[in-house]
Every structure is written in structure tokens, then in C-alpha cells.
């Protein structure tokens, strides 16, 4: 583990000059739809350069939290700060220059090549008139290289597989050139190989660029392996927040994911490994 990573873990978001940019601070956040409260007072501090995994059951508010952080929803109470600036007070473009969000899924856009899609990520920086200018954009080239899509640059997006499209959308988010990146279930629709490819890309980008990454993951094993910190949500509140070695316990599996299970250690890497068993609370283990 690098010194930067351990430093970040200890740093927890104190607002001093030494803090790395890209910090996200969530204070007393509440949000709901008529008849259903989704977030019921969430506090969270993500330091610049930290890689945080959000885990929890479907509908516990993970995606909503990401959307609020990206300024796509307005909180009912509380606030989100990006590098100390309140998101609700920033314009859409100013927010998108600070934080990028990769949605869980997106419609394919017929007629557009990979290069054209990735270029759309430059809107926040270039603005409506800047998008009219032609010419190569070095940030786009870098984003395509980082996401591993440069070789398909001139292919139409419809011709790509689901995993490839996911990487194109990651490249579009990277083209926003932000310090913070939010990923909503980036691996859900992918096969194991492509899942690990995406995770490796994210880990590498964090190491090379010092990106702050908050990602929703359903695979608690991946969260334990790749994240600096795991934040578990249940019914719109944070029920666990800490380093994987500290928080991944049978208690967390029961509390946040509603499953029984055992937790071991990877024999080589030492990270927590989960053996999930039966759903709670009916009881009986599933027999083979």
C-alpha cells in the first residue's frame, strides 16, 4: 500500500491546505419521493484520492446518494460539498467539471462513433459553443486510452458489446477531466473478466491520477478487495463505514446485505473474502 493511500485513510476530510483535491463531503443528507423517504440523514466524508465502495441492498439509497453528490437531484435537507463548494449553489456545468457520474446503464446512441461519444464528455469544460469547434482534443485521446477504447475510436457504438460500451461510457466520464468519479454499479452487467478489467482500470486511474472514486458495488468481495473504505447503507442511513478489514464481518453481511455468511482472508493478498450463505431470517442453510 502506498503512503498516499494510508495518508488518505487517516485524513478523513479535514479542511486543511494539505488535503488533496477531489474531496466529497455529505452532511445530514435527506431525500425522498412522495410517500417514500430514500435517504434519512446521511453523513459521509470522502477524502481526495480515496476509493470508497458503497454497498447495500437494492433500494437502500446508494444510487440516489451518487446522484445527489453529482448534483442531479436536489436534497430535501442537508448538503453536498465538493472541495468545499456546496453543490446546490453550483451550475450544472460547474458541477460536471468537478465530478463525473457513470450511470448504471444508458441507451446506445445510434449513428455515433466511440470518438464522438467520448467527445460529449467535454461539454462541461468546452460549453455549447466550444462543442461546435472541430479538432483533436488531447483530453479525449487520454480518456480513450485510459479506458482502453482507443482502438475502436472510429467504430459505431452499436457495433460494440455490452462490456465494450461500458468502457466507452467510462471514457466519456473520464473526458470530463474531473478530480472525483462516481460509478453506479460499473460491473453489474459484465462477465467476470470484464468486471476485473473495469476494476483494474479504476484502481490504476486512482493510483496514477489521484482520482477520488466512489463506486456502488453489489459484489462485496470486490468491494473488500479493491476499496480503501466500505460504506454500507441500509434503509437510507449509513450502518457501517471503515476499512474493509475492519468492517467486513458476518455482522455487516447480515445487517447491510441481509445474508448470513462467513468471512475469511485471501491466502495471498490478505483482504477479506466472503462466503455468502442463505438469506435471513428464514434460517436454514441451503443444502446441496
Amino acid at each position: 500500500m502506498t503512503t498516499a493511500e494510508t495518508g488518505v485513510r487517516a485524513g478523513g476530510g479535514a479542511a486543511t491546505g494539505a488535503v488533496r483535491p477531489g474531496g466529497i463531503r455529505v452532511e445530514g443528507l435527506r431525500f425522498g419521493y412522495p410517500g417514500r423517504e430514500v435517504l434519512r440523514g446521511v453523513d459521509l466524508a470522502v477524502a481526495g484520492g480515496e476509493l470508497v465502495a458503497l454497498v447495500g441492498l437494492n433500494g437502500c439509497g446508494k444510487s440516489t446518494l451518487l446522484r445527489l453528490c453529482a448534483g442531479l437531484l436536489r436534497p430535501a435537507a442537508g448538503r453536498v460539498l465538493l472541495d468545499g463548494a456546496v453543490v446546490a449553489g453550483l451550475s450544472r456545468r460547474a458541477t460536471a467539471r468537478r465530478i463525473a457520474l457513470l450511470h448504471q446503464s444508458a441507451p446506445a446512441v445510434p449513428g455515433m462513433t466511440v470518438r464522438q461519444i467520448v467527445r460529449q464528455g467535454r461539454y462541461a469544460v468546452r460549453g455549447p459553443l466550444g462543442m461546435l469547434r472541430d479538432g483533436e482534443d488531447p483530453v479525449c485521446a487520454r480518456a480513450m486510452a485510459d479506458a482502453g477504447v482507443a482502438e475502436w475510436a472510429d467504430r459505431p457504438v452499436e457495433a460494440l458489446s455490452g462490456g465494450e460500451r461500458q468502457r466507452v461510457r467510462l471514457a466519456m466520464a473520464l473526458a470530463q477531466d474531473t478530480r472525483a468519479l462516481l460509478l453506479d454499479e460499473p460491473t453489474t452487467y459484465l462477465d467476470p473478466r470484464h468486471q476485473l478489467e473495469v476494476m483494474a482500470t479504476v484502481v490504476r486511474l486512482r493510483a496514477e491520477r489521484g482520482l477520488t472514486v466512489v463506486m456502488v458495488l453489489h459484489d462485496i468481495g470486490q468491494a473488500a478487495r479493491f476499496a480503501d473504505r466500505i460504506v454500507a447503507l441500509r434503509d437510507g442511513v449509513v450502518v457501517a463505514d471503515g476499512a474493509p478489514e475492519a468492517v467486513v464481518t458476518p455482522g455487516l453481511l447480515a445487517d447491510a446485505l441481509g445474508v448470513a455468511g462467513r468471512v475469511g482472508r485471501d491466502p495471498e493478498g490478505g483482504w477479506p473474502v466472503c462466503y455468502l450463505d442463505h438469506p435471513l431470517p428464514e434460517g436454514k442453510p441451503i443444502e446441496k
Partner: protein
Amino acid sequence: MSVVVRAACAVRTRRVPVAAVLGVLGVLVVAAGLAGLVAGRALGAPEVWEVLSGGGDARARHVVLQLRLPRALVAPVAGAALGLAGTVLQSALRNPLAGPEVTGVTPGAVLGAVAATGLGLAGWEHPAAVVAAAAAGGFAGAGLLWLLAGRDQGDPARAAVYGVLASAVLSGLTAVVLLVAPGELGSVVQWLVGSTEGRVWAHWNLLWPWTLVWAVLAWLLAGPLTLLRCGQEQAAAAGLATGRARAAALVCAVALTAGAVPAVGALGFVGLLVPHLAFAVLGAELRTALPGAALLGATVVGWADAVAQWLSRALAALTATDRLVVPAGALTTGCGALLLLVVARRSGGADR
């Protein structure tokens, strides 16, 4: 057909420069204008050329300079406006079935124009009043769709159904106005079908500056519109204020339609299908697709006008009467229906 598809792919991946495609389309537009000039009944190409080079007798000068020239100019510019309006609408609503004809905009504009004429507020001698009435009607039509569709606007198929509903209601109202005030029925019917007959300089003088202004505004929206095509969520995450961008785009689309309807009426399918051609040939990036849509719209309506005149002349020769006139709108609707079948099959396959 496969040659066309391959050529379109080559353009989309930038192996053929966009400028070359736009240049070819520009030549087609000019050719349509020239064809329109010589296609009419009264004069042949030599007489037209004589007038244009400064000669000709008074009658020939009148026919060419007062009847044919404004018509040959109005048709392509109105086509460009409709093509742009459709492209802007389809992108803003993210709906390949959107077009001014099927979102209540064109029927609303026709209703506005017909009502204003029927009530005596406007007429052929006051084209500006007709444009204002058409714009009001177009906004009312779009507003009606907005009210009907409510929260369902994300679903293209449902939005299309509501669009057909809104258009039917507005067309019904137009019929009511025509029954109540049948005075200028003959000239008004041209708006319903879409016709390029009898255009005069007054139409041109109003049409081109209005279209130019809104076309430039539409092109300035190319960046936001391209993002909207990527999906509303994606666009918002990339930094676009989607609500404002959509509203601006809709105003542009209604204004472009409202300018074209008083000049050429409800030319069927131009606004709905020209965008599909433009996207197929120039790709989905609006900064190139919009100029392409303008030129394609101009080409389509320009040639529809020329062919309609040729057909009218041929019919007149066959039947030995002067009363049979083929309106350009009948041609665009006929050809458009065929093309719509192709589009429906293709987009149906792509979605699944």
C-alpha cells in the same frame, strides 16, 4: 442500396470529409432550383434563360421574375426549415418518431394560419400576420402535446401516440374553422396539403430572414442537442441543464415550422423523415447533421416542387385542361410514406 449504406458509413467514420457531402447536397439544391425554374407550363428553358440574362418580353419577364423565381427560392428554404425543425425535435425529445407533423406543431401552425385568415386578421397580403398566427398555433400545438403527454414524455411510442392525438384534434379544429368561414377556402386548402403554387416575393422576403435567424440559433444548440441524444441522465451528468436546453430547442423547432407553414403549408413527412436521412448520411453529431438536414430538406422540397410542376405540365398535356395541378405536398407525402416504412422497419430492428 448497399452502395448508399457503404457510402454513409464512410462519411460517418470521417473517411469522406463532411464538407464534400455538404457540397454535393448544395449542388443538388441549386439543381433543384434550376429545374423548378424551367419546369413550369408556360415557358421552356431557352425563354427562362433569355429573361435571366436580361432579355425576354414582358409576359415572360413577369412569369419568370414574379412567379417562378420566388417559388424556386421559397421551396428549398421552407424545406430547409422543416428539415431543421424535425432534426431539432427528434434530438430534443430523443424520439425518432418525432417531427413537426406528428407533435402537433405543424397542425397547430396550420390552424393558426387558417384561423387568422378565416377571421380576416391576416391574408395573402399580410404574410407577417400569418407567420405570427402560425407561430402562436405551433406553440399551442406543442403545448397541447405537452399537456397530453404529461409525465410520459420519455417513452417514444407513447409520445408518438399523444402526438397523433394532438394533431388529430388540431386538424379537426381547422376543419371547423373552414366550415364556419369558408371564404378563402381555395387558398387555404393549399396549407392543408402543402403546396408551392403561387408563391410571391412577399413570402420570400419574410421566409429567408426568419429561417436564417432560427437556423443559426438551432446550429448554436448543436452541442446540447447532441448530448440530449445520448439520453437525459447522461446529458445532465455531463453538465447540461437539460430542461433549459430542451425548451430552447423546442422554441427553435416551433419557430422554424411556423415560418415554413405560411409559405408552403403542411408538406407531409418532410420534417419527420429528412432527419433520418441526415443522420444516416452525416452521423448523429448535430453540428454536421443540422447543416445536412437543412440541405437535404431543401433538396427534397426543391425537387418535389420541380417534379410537381413537371407532372402538372404532363397531366395538362394529357388531359388538355389546365385545371389539374399536382401539389408538392402530395409528392412528399407519397414518397414519405414509403420511406417511413423503411425507417420503421430499420429502427424496429435496431431497438431490439
